[in-house]
């Protein structure tokens, strides 16, 4: 157990979750049944902070913009790329495995990396073992894409703990 | 107050069962004892009221059918409530000894038994097809875990098979309910009768689904495969409840549906078919019972055979047959509970129930064995017993309707049941000249012996109390 499971940490998490859930309730209901929404949000936040507290990250505004842009661009290009390969009579593909050394350390950033890689053109993260991600690739320039995704995620968060490991 | 009685009869045991599960008390089962007394007393009250003033109806939530659900305590329902209350009270007393404070799973036994009691009452009182599906499922799911209480892993396979058949049977029944609703736009038993009467193919299919689903639940041959291992493997008190009440509840439902919502569809060939199935059950169950090597399996197969008699109502469908079938259900239930409790005493004393290794039990287990023999008299249908009255009524019905072939079935069935009963008694009594068994357990105490005896005596006494009970039941609807 690290210090990250302390009271302050849980409280921060609970407040963030409660605020997010309240927003979710507003989106779902359009402002009706607010007392129920508030009770539910507080209860859910309390349960979550008690049972499964997470880390709160404050994304850098510019980093967020960069990441969202990259994500949307990659999604579109990834879809178009694989669609083109599927429709092409010869199905141009170079399926192979790549082992990529990951520098991101925090579980949340790693999760985001894995999720994004699956939507990036020509790459699919199949396994993470230690710091090595096993990636299935069907395009030529894969390592560059992966590095770009990693850099965007690295720039997204203010890394408060968990120092960089070379 | 009396109009609330049906609801109370369902919810007092139901709520007590829920609370018993939650409190999980290991001490003296105070809650179950109090609940048993109250429920039995309320049952008596309701029966007295129905006897005096006729059927009681209760519209749940104040909504009348076809929108709401109706509880309906008529003659048939209260006779079944009577059976449940008598057997239930005696089993409760017996279970004070067999599921006392030091027995593992005792608290679960009481919780399940009280829930089962409430569920059975709910089933007998229900006047709504879909509600009957729910209560059937309740009865099954209260009864099935009882089989598991036999101990770690011993009855898992039997329980699983029981559950799968029960679940499938109730869904087949539910398919019939769906069709009935599609035809009649109502789920009320009585209101559905007229639309069903001229519904053609869909109605016939609906009726077949309802009957088939119930037959699976009632372990009617050829859907009996789950029964012997489950009833034979459960603890004695649970076996008594399962054989006397749970499968009976399904056959009760067959009688109920046939005479009310399906009355307009019931055709003579369908009746003859059900009668033939009943005859097959009688012969098959009796022969298999004769061939068993374990006491509880003999009794379990005997249940398969005895349920067959109740099916003989359908081909004859006259008031005598109606009275005979219901009275048979009552007599068999009480006698069968006595048999299983007596077998439980044998197992508690000897440690097993392998017939060939039972001998010399007449002295240490004199009262239990005497009770077994008395209950056996009723099962065989010998006078003066409840079983005799029931078979006599059925015989007269066969003669009245001129369907002599059922006379043959009844006679053969009686002979076969005599054969397997005497076989058991021969092992237990007549070889007693030899060495006594090296018993493992202590002698069963009075709490185990006297309920058994009381049930056996009641099974005999039913031979002389036929008039008031048949008056309560009333004629065929």
């Amino acid at each position, binding site marked *: 157990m690290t210090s990250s499971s302390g009271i302050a940490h849980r409280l921060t998490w609970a407040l963030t979750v409660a605020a997010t859930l309240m927003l979710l309730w507003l989106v779902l209901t359009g402002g009706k049944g607010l007392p129920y929404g508030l009770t539910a949000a507080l209860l859910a936040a309390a349960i979550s902070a008690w049972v499964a507290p997470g880390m709160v990250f404050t994304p850098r505004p510019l980093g967020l913009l960069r990441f969202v842009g990259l994500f949307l661009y990659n999604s579109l290009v990834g879809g*178009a790329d694989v669609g083109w390969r599927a429709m092409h009579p010869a199905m141009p593909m170079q399926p192979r495995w790549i082992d990529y050394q990951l520098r991101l350390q925090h579980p949340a950033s790693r999760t985001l990396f894995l999720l994004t890689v699956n939507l990036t053109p020509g790459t699919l993260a199949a*396994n993470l073992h230690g710091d090595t991600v096993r990636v299935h690739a069907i395009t030529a320039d894969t390592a560059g894409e992966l590095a770009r995704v990693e850099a965007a995620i690295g720039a997204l968060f203010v890394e408060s703990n968990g120092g960089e490991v070379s | 107050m009396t109009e609330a009685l049906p609801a109370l009869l369902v919810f007092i045991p139901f709520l007590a069962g829920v609370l018993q599960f939650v409190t999980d008390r290991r001490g003296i089962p105070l809650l179950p004892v109090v609940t048993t007394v109250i429920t039995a007393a309320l049952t008596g009250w309701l029966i007295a009221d129905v006897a005096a003033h006729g059927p009681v109806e209760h519209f749940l939530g104040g909504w009348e059918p076809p929108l709401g659900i109706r509880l309906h305590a008529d003659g048939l329902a209260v006779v079944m409530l009577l059976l449940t209350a008598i057997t239930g009270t005696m089993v409760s007393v017996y279970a004070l000894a067999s599921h006392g404070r030091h027995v593992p799973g005792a608290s679960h036994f009481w919780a399940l038994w009280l829930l089962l009691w409430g569920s059975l009452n709910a089933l007998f009182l229900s006047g709504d097809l879909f509600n009957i599906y729910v209560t059937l499922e309740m009865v099954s799911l209260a009864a099935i875990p009882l089989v598991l209480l036999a101990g770690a892993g011993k009855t898992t396979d039997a329980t699983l098979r029981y559950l799968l058949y029960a679940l499938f049977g109730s869904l087949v029944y539910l398919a019939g309910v769906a069709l009935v609703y599609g035809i009649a736009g109502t789920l009320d038993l009585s209101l559905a009768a007229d639309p069903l009467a001229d519904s053609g193919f869909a109605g016939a299919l609906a009726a077949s689904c309802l009957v088939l689903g119930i037959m699976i639940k009632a372990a009617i041959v050829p859907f009996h495969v789950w029964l012997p291992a489950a009833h034979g493997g459960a603890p004695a008190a649970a076996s008594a409840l399962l054989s006397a009440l749970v499968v009976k509840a399904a056959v009760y439902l067959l009688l109920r549906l046939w005479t009310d919502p399906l009355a307009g569809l019931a055709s003579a060939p369908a009746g003859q078919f059900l009668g033939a199935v009943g005859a097959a059950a009688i012969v098959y169950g009796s022969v298999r019972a004769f061939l068993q090597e374990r006491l509880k399996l003999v009794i379990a197969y005997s249940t398969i055979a005895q349920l067959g008699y109740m099916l003989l109502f359908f081909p004859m469908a006259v008031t005598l047959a109606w009275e005979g079938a219901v009275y048979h259900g009552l007599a068999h239930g009480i006698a069968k509970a006595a048999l299983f409790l007596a077998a439980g005493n044998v197992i508690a004393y000897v440690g097993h129930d392998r017939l060939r290794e039972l001998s010399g039990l007449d002295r240490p287990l004199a009262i239990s064995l005497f009770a077994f023999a008395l209950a056996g008299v009723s099962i065989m249908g010998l006078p003066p017993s409840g079983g005799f009255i029931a078979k006599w009524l059925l015989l007269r019905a066969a003669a009245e309707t001129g369907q002599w072939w059922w006379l043959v079935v009844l006679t053969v069935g009686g002979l076969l049941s005599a054969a397997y009963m005497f076989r058991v008694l021969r092992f237990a009594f007549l070889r007693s000249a030899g060495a006594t068994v090296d018993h493992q357990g202590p002698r069963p105490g009075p709490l185990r012996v006297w309920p058994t005896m009381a049930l056996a005596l009641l099974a005999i006494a039913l031979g002389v109390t036929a008039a008031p009970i048949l008056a309560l039941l009333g004629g065929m609807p």
Partner: protein
Amino acid sequence: MINLLAGAFIIAGLLFFLAGTVGLLRFPDIYSRLHAVTKADNAGLGLLAVGIALLADTWRLVLLIALLWMVAVIASSVACHLVARHHLREEDQG
């Protein structure tokens, strides 16, 4: 005008779905098929969502659609990763 644009987005989205399905049928092995399903369906769903959002009349609906798209994208990515991992393990074990 808006309707026309929305229609274009929806048709484009459906085309992506079509391509993804073709890939699912044509690609040689399980991993390549996962590529096809995840990426093409993600882009297709996104375009579809934009198309439908253009037709929505309240901001609440737009937000809801965006939320739904996000959940669907995360779910498909997770499923893709887990399936790939499962197969990789099975191959390793022989």
